């Protein structure tokens, strides 16, 4: 993804979703992070090429891998911060944390994925993309974003695993 392509994505998707999070929730701030997210995206994309041995630079990465790299990049850069976060006498718990950056990372990457699908087929332009149901007591988005949160806290984020999840989601439609 060239820088001007990323800038379009940043302005039209990342900032848009971030703005809607701020409008719907008090006490959060968005920090301009285009440089940081783009640099981290390039790191993740390049690492994925090395791990998956995609050595042919003329062959671009699959869209689900691009979305996975973007998810990790946004998640690691954490462009939204919470004003009220504090640790008084060691009382901070994981349940006090919020997953707003994980939600933002998934929303932006999912938008990117839908953009790829719609760009490849004009017939999907009016389609509503509904994620698969879950078999437990929370929906897909909450389950996925909370899993991202726990994975990040445990330093166990895997772009390759995320790419497989996005590929499976692609198969769902």
């Amino acid at each position, binding site marked *: *993804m*060239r820088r001007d*392509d990323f800038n*379009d*994505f940043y302005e*039209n*998707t990342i900032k848009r*979703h971030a703005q*809607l*999070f701020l*409008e*719907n*929730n008090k006490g959060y701030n968005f920090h301009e992070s285009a440089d940081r997210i783009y640099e981290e995206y390039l790191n993740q994309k390049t690492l994925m090429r090395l791990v998956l041995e995609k050595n042919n630079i003329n*062959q*671009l*990465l*699959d*869209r*689900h891998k*691009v979305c996975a790299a973007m998810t990790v990049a946004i998640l690691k850069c954490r462009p939204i911060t919470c004003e009220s976060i504090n640790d008084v006498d060691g009382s901070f*718990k*994981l*349940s*006090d*944390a*919020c*997953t*707003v950056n994980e939600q933002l990372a998934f*929303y932006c990457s999912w*938008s990117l*994925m*839908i*953009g*790829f699908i*719609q*760009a*490849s087929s*004009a017939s999907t*332009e009016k*389609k*509503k*993309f*509904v*994620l698969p149901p*879950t*078999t*437990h*007591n*929370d929906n897909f988005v*909450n*389950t996925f*974003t*909370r899993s991202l*949160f*726990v994975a990040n*806290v445990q330093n166990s984020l895997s772009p390759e695993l995320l790419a497989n999840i996005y*590929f*499976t989601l*692609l*198969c769902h439609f």
Partner: protein
Amino acid sequence: MKILNLIKKDNRDKCTIYQNANNSFDFDYSVQSGADDNGKDEPLFKNANKNIDMSVTYEMKEVDYYA
């Protein structure tokens, strides 16, 4: 990105593609909490694996679109 070639082919600009994509899913902007108190998310994922339908399989195939 190949997506841009595809977009150019049907005369849609990038902003339109992203805006359509943003509107094609019902995003919920209420912020969720990080985890349960013991950090294991047991209430959320309780019995999740037991209920997974393992008979569903997906065929891995060559993907046509790259980015």
